[in-house]
């Protein structure tokens, strides 16, 4: 399914399938002989190249959600700000949302361009120890639309992983678009040699979000991607005037807590709605340092601590390799 060419006949089993070249759908396909020979089953050489490249990256974490607009990029931004607040920790954020890159704006890097160096593309630095890469840095205007089908998006993701000069990193955080499609399959596939520590799943409390997030969890299980845990975002709103809490996105089916207990996943934390989060993202500043005393910042910090711990334990356990 992951390797069906765009011009393949209907019911193509996929070029890397053991059935490749042998099913009835393969009859008459110009690639039938190549597929049947098994030559198409050899893995993409990029996977090995990316493994080499990633040898200097200690931890790789994906931020996922089936649903859009739940705060994946917001969370990713706070996560890298939080991790990089320790100046001895080298952190990078890779934005693979090719059609809707929000990271440049959230990190205050709008209008920045990527530079080419001898060892590849140089990422854009927020701090000495915080690097960012996004397709946004390759666009010439904020109106530029990236109207690309899957294969082109996949090619871009491959380049991001293989050709960016990341240097020595403690953490590489990968922010993804919503869904379970090309970008997700490609990231997982290209990092399959290098190994991923795990995924953080972001949701909001409503069932409309959870029903998509369950699909994303199904995706993780299908591709054997470990799940570090779930973050519930937009979890209640405290009125700044009267201090009463409102459930703007009501957890009608028990929210992330119930889903996590049903699916036996750790709930890393719940982050309340706070207008200052959106505002600091729009201004490209770190909410964690601007509003360090707020309940939302405390929630972010505690989640980030759990993620650090997960990675540390993983190393001590000897897994991931």
């Amino acid at each position: 399914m992951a390797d069906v060419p765009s011009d393949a006949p209907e019911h193509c089993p996929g070029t890397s399938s053991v059935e490749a070249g042998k099913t009835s759908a393969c009859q008459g396909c110009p690639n039938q002989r190549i597929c049947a020979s098994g030559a198409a089953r050899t893995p993409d050489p990029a996977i090995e190249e990316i493994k080499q490249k990633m040898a200097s990256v200690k931890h790789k974490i994906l931020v996922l959600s089936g649903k859009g607009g739940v705060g994946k990029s917001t969370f990713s931004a706070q996560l890298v700000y939080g991790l990089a607040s320790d100046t001895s920790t080298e952190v990078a954020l890779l934005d693979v949302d090719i059609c809707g890159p929000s990271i440049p704006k959230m990190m205050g890097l709008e209008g920045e361009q990527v530079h080419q160096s001898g060892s590849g593309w140089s990422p854009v630095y927020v701090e000495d120890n915080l690097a960012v890469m996004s397709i946004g840095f390759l666009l010439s205007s904020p109106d530029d639309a990236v109207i690309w089908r899957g294969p082109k998006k996949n090619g871009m993701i491959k380049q991001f992983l293989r050709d960016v000069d990341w240097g020595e990193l403690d953490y590489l955080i990968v922010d993804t678009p919503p869904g379970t499609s090309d970008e997700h399959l490609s990231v997982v596939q290209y990092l399959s040699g290098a190994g991923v520590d795990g995924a953080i799943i972001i949701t909001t409390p409503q069932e409309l979000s959870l029903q998509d997030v369950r699909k994303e969890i199904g995706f993780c299980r299908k591709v054997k991607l470990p799940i570090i845990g779930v973050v519930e975002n937009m979890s209640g709103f405290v009125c700044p005037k009267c201090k009463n809490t409102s459930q703007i996105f009501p957890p009608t089916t028990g929210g992330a807590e119930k889903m996590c207990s049903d699916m036996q996943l750790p709930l890393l934390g719940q982050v309340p709605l706070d207008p200052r989060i959106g505002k600091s993202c729009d201004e490209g500043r770190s909410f964690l340092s601007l509003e360090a005393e707020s309940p939302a910042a405390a929630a972010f910090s505690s989640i980030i601590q759990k993620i650090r711990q997960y990675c540390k334990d993983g190393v001590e356990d000897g897994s991931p390799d």
Partner: protein
Amino acid sequence: SHRNNSSIGNLAQVRHVVLVLSGKGGVGKSTLTTELALALRHAGKKVGILDVDLCGPSIPRMLCVGRQDVHQCDAGWVPVYTDAQKSLALMSIGFLLENPDDAVVWRGPKKTALIGQFVSDVAWGELDFLLVDTPPGTSDEHLAVVENLRKHKVDGAILVTTPQAVSTGDVRREITFCKKTGLRILGIVENMSGFVCPHCSECSNIFSKGGGEELAKLSGSPFLGCIPLDPQLSTSVEEGKDFIQAFPESATFSAISHIAQAVLANIAAA
């Protein structure tokens, strides 16, 4: 009627086709599609919704038609009707999944193929409006919808955004997509615009304010209106209740019906 082209056969009796788009996810495309469909039905129109969000279909839940089987007839797939009068029809991948939690892990070509089938093979019958709800972005699904509907007349697209710059930034790219593919922009809707505290009536602009109107000015598109953050609306779509019927006195209802009127007027003016 002139059924000269078999591939538009199933859309031959569909008067207007409107796409609901946004570069950004979670801004309320499906909520707006649902409420617009209900408002149009309320105004006596026959409405169909085609949900082409294949990885995250939300409309079946929003219309409380969770697990229906799709039947075949001579003309193709019979859409799922949400009411006995058959005035609101829906087609979604949600109806084709064995288990609602199944992930649809598909790359572009497979998504494109199913959307092609959705456009040509659903027996909509006679409709005043077909609303097409899309996933976020400017990629396979969007190109597939536009290309497959090219033979049929598309009236235009409604763009949904939330007020903050991070969202309007993505919607600017969607405007470029519309221009490049020759899609008329019927207008921009700003959703999640302000939250009125039910305890003290203080309005908080949780996701900032005014971004949608500013974007409309910047791009020379009509501004259709704002929909506030309203827990009654989010609960209604969560539970598949008809908000238009349940809360006809609310400010949110008047905002939605105002937007529906503006859409009708913009289509009529074309």
